[in-house]
Structures are given as C-alpha cells and as structure tokens.
C-alpha cells in the first residue's frame, strides 16, 4: 500500500513536509541544477504534469517548485529543475546526493491532459519554463499515438542557458516532433536561430481549431506569445499558461499567490486564456 503524499497533510499538519532523499544532482547550466528526489518507502507523489511541490530545507525555508519529470517516467522518483535565485535555492544548489529535503504536495490542478488528446500540441517554453513543460512534453511523448502534431518552440537567453540539451537532441532527432530553438544572444559556436521566442512562430503553420498551445515562461513573455497564438487563430480556450506566483503555503490559505480572486496554488498554476482573459492581474 502506498500513501499519496498529499494525503499525509491531513494527518497532523498541512504544513508538515515529508523528508525525501536527493538521489541525484545534475548541473544543467550555470544557474540551474536538476535534482532527482526519492520519497521514503511507501509514499507516492502521483502528480499530474503542471503541478508543483513545496520544497523545504529546515532552517532556511520553503518554496514552490514545479515538477519537471513526467508521471509516465516516475520510477519511484521525481525531478525538480531548480534555478539559483534566492536563499533557499542557493542552499539547495550546495546540497548533494544523499542529502534530505522536505516535500509537500503535489499542489495545483495541473494541465487537463485528457482534453489535449487527439489535438495538435504547440509547446512554447521560454527559459526556465521548459522545466514544468518537460513534464507534460515527456508524458505526451510516452503516449505519442494519442496526439496529433507536436511542435516545440523553445527560447532561451543564450546557448549556455539551454536546459535539457540531451532531450532537446532526442526531440530534434524524432520525425514526429517539430522542434525549433532560438536564443536571444548567440555565442561564437551557435549556428541556430537568433531572436526572441516570438520570432519562431512564423515558422509553424497550424490547423488552429485543432491546436492546443501551452506556454510557460517569464512573466514578460506571455503577452507577446499570446499575440502570436491569437494571430494564428488558436481558440482562447485552447491556449494554456502556467503562472509563477509566490505560492507560500500551497493550500489556499496564505494569500500570496492570489491573482485577483484566484488562488494560483489551488485553481492553477495552469490556466487557459479563456479562463483568465478578464482576470486583470493574470497577464
């Protein structure tokens, strides 16, 4: 019998993390590392792509981190791609395999992947946005037959900021994935596209009403990518985002992650454009 991790919150305290072991740490870029996390015997994360966990280091604090691995590849562990951006992530970056962190979650509703079946999928990750989207992309690739075209338009600042380069190479090599990558600023070895992510959109022609677009990136990116997607005629309800907010408690109480009336940690962090187009604080 395995216990679902978020069920444990109902036992003693919704704020009590479960101790989990870092099974592996992999350096990805100068700022990002990929952590493989193993829950204690008998616990299962059972997450959906797009959900997040609260990661704790006692004495330092707790922060929401999106789950980067696909449920289809769980293997008893899950992965977190973490950028060094503050106190907690700074400490995490100094941790090694074998160290213990605290985990609560998974939280949020994730992407409604059932509704994506049979559709063409256009993924538009910007920068670290690939971390949560990778969970969805790999899930989709592991049940490839259930979807139509798969297009990935990925933008990063520089070639050395590209995440999951081994997987990018795999996707590039597949006939059934259309991958386009661009960087804002090339280095001397870069032979690919140069420009912001929106410069990739003219490269793909889509059958708009059968296309689902999923966009995850820094706040500034959403408006510009949205213009491209609406310009292609993709229906508002088919455009999905995942929003970054300060989801301090994860359980709909603390108030930090509110987008107008919506608690991002409960109703999101994934939202369709149709759901939030009149929610002023969203974009």
């Amino acid at each position, binding site marked *: 019998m395995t216990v679902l991790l978020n069920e444990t*919150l109902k036992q003693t*305290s919704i704020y009590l993390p479960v101790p989990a072991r870092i099974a592996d740490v992999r350096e990805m870029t100068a700022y990002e590392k990929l952590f493989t996390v193993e829950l204690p015997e008998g616990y299962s994360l059972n997450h959906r792509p797009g959900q997040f966990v609260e990661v704790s280091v006692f*004495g330092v604090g707790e922060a929401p981190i999106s789950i980067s691995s696909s449920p289809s590849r769980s293997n008893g562990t899950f992965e977190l791609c973490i950028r060094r951006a503050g106190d907690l992530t700074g400490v995490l970056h100094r941790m090694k395999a074998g160290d213990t962190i605290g985990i609560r979650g998974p939280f949020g509703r994730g992407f409604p992947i059932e509704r994506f079946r049979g559709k063409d999928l256009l993924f538009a990750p910007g920068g670290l946005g690939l971390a949560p989207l990778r969970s969805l992309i790999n899930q989709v690739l592991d049940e490839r037959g259930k979807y139509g075209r798969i297009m990935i338009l990925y933008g990063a600042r520089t070639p050395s900021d590209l995440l999951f380069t081994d997987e990018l190479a795999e996707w590039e090599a597949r006939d059934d994935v259309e991958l386009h990558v661009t960087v804002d600023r090339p280095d001397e070895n870069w032979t690919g596209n140069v420009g912001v992510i929106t410069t990739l959109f003219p490269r793909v022609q889509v059958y708009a009403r059968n296309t689902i677009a999923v966009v995850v990136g820094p706040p500034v990116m959403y408006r510009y990518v949205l213009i491209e997607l609406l310009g292609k005629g993709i229906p508002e309800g088919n455009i999905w985002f995942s929003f970054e907010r300060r989801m301090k408690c994860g*359980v709909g109480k603390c108030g930090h992650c509110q987008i107008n*009336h919506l608690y991002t940690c409960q109703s999101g962090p994934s939202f369709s454009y149709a759901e939030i187009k009149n929610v002023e*604080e969203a974009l």
Partner: protein
Amino acid sequence: MGFKIMPKAALPAWIDRLCADYRVVGPKPLHGQYIFGDIHSAEELALDYTTTVLPPKKYLLPPREELLRFEGSNAEPVIEEDAPPTVVLGVHTCDLHAIHLLDRVFEQGYADQHYRAHRENVVLVSIECLKPCSEHSFCKDMGTLSADEGFDLHLTDLGDDYAVDIGSEKGEALLEGLDAVRDATPEDYERVNHVMAEKWPRFPYRLEFDVTELPSLLAVSYHSEHWDELGERCLSCGMCTKVCPTCYCFNVVDEVDFTLSAGKRIRHWDSCQIDEFAVVAGGHNFRPTRAARQRHRFFRKGKYQWEAYGLLGCVGCGRCAQACLVHITPVDTFNELYRRRVLYTARRQEVHT
C-alpha cells in the same frame, strides 16, 4: 439552545469561577483604548467597551505562532491541543461574524489543524451592542449588528440583569452550578425584545446603497480612478490589515537556534498592502502599485471572499478606518465608488434620451 437570566451582581463571582477553570480574556482599557487581554477579576473587565485595537482573532490566529519544530531534517508539528481552554468574554457581534468567516477559510479544502486546535480551545461569550462603538463602524450596513449563532454564550444587557443566550454545550458548561442564574420567563422575553427594538434606531446606516449590491458594485469599479487616488494617499504601512478581524494572510519563516540545525518554522501575519507581498524569486512584483494593493484589499472584503466563502470579507467594525493614518476608510471608499457609478449611469441615460 436556551435563554437564561443572570443578575449583574453575580458577574464578579462568575468571572472568579471561570478564572479557576479557564484562561479568561476580555476587553480591558489600556492607554486610553481597549484591548483584549487576560482577565483575572471582574474589575478588569470592561464589557461596555467601544472597540478594541486588535480583534479577538489573535486567539485563533496568533500574530506569530510555531507551526513546526525541527532538528536537522526531522520535524514535528506544533498543535496546541493541551493549551488551557480559553474563554473570550465580551466579543462584539461584528467580531463573531468575522470568526465565522475565518472558520470557513481555515476549514475549506485543506483544513488547517493549527487553527482548528485554537478554535476548539476557545469558548466565545459575545455581547449585544446597544450603542455605536465608533464613528467608523458600519455594522448595521454589513448585517453584523447582531448574531443568532456562532457564539457559545451571548449576553444582552437588560439593566440589572444579563440575558444569556446559550449557543452550545461548551457555553452551557460555563453556567453550570451557578445558583444566581435562572430560567427566563415570558416577561424576560419582553425585556429583551424591548432592548432590541430600542437599540436598532441608535445605529446609523452609513453606506449609501444596500450591501447586497457591494459585490456587483465592485465588479463594475475595477478600473475606477478612485483606486489611483487611494494609492496616492496610501502609505503601504499595512495597519488596515493588521487590525482587521477577517484578514488572515500570513508568511512562514524559519528561525534557527544557536546550534544552527534546530529551530522553529513560524507563521506570522502578513499584509497584501506591503510592497513585497506578491514578489517572486527573481524579484518580479505582481502587485507593484499601492493603488492595485488597496484595490485588492477592498475586492477581498467586498467581492472575492463573498464568492469563495459565501460571506463578505468586511464586518463593518471600523478598525481599519480608525487605524489608517491617511483616512482611507471602507465607508468612504464604497460610497465614493457608488456615487461615481450613479453619476456614470445618469450620464449614460442622458446620452441615450
């Protein structure tokens, strides 16, 4: 559940008895204002108080409380189950309504065991307000000027006696074995009816519209320039939220002891009015202006909470207005939005006729 009569002369003996079995807190004077604080005898208690600086919320959601204690990577939750049962005396009905909202917030979805432990530990003895407590309160508008549930005991001042409504077994237990307390008679019903009928006209309506219109008024006022005007004045001090009986937003921080490996995870009150409230790692602020933060506060009070919990987020206690250094008040704000809306509608009608 029942209705008793307690002579006022019996109050000191009752308080003494309560103090023997419970931690007793209630309104008492401090530096020219009133606060909720520990009570050891009836002399300290000021049941005829106006309003307190902080609401009794602090006994349910302490300004600062331990959630967890940790050592290394092991942690234990801190749930205050063996704290002494606490009687909160003299809760005004606005604050009672506020506690009702807090109950819904902390029980809905993931139930908060820390809040629940405090809540179950508290016995609420409310009191009927017979005259307005401050120039800023507008409980009559907000429908919180009385309460027929949510208390364990409820006192109504009848002159020489208190009418005591019993709201729960916890409340009833407070009266056990008190010889001075007697059952109410039909004459007592009349006395209470009379006091209630007399009290109502003493309280003014301060909103220029019916409160049921508040959520829809806000819905059409999101882009009002009035938010910018409030933002110009607001100091982002967060006092309005600190004194609010329904504000519950919090932050969670870790504190380590001298070993640097053991410590506490602390929850403390936070405020959506503070600049960094909606800042994420990397520094982006999702609510960067004071105008947007004031709007967020008023929308929570008048719309969001109503949508999420079926109760308005403002109980009309007036504390935020009292505390605000630049005189931003809910009554003025809501009325100003209403006036602008009426004016706007009138102008549109002119255009169309």
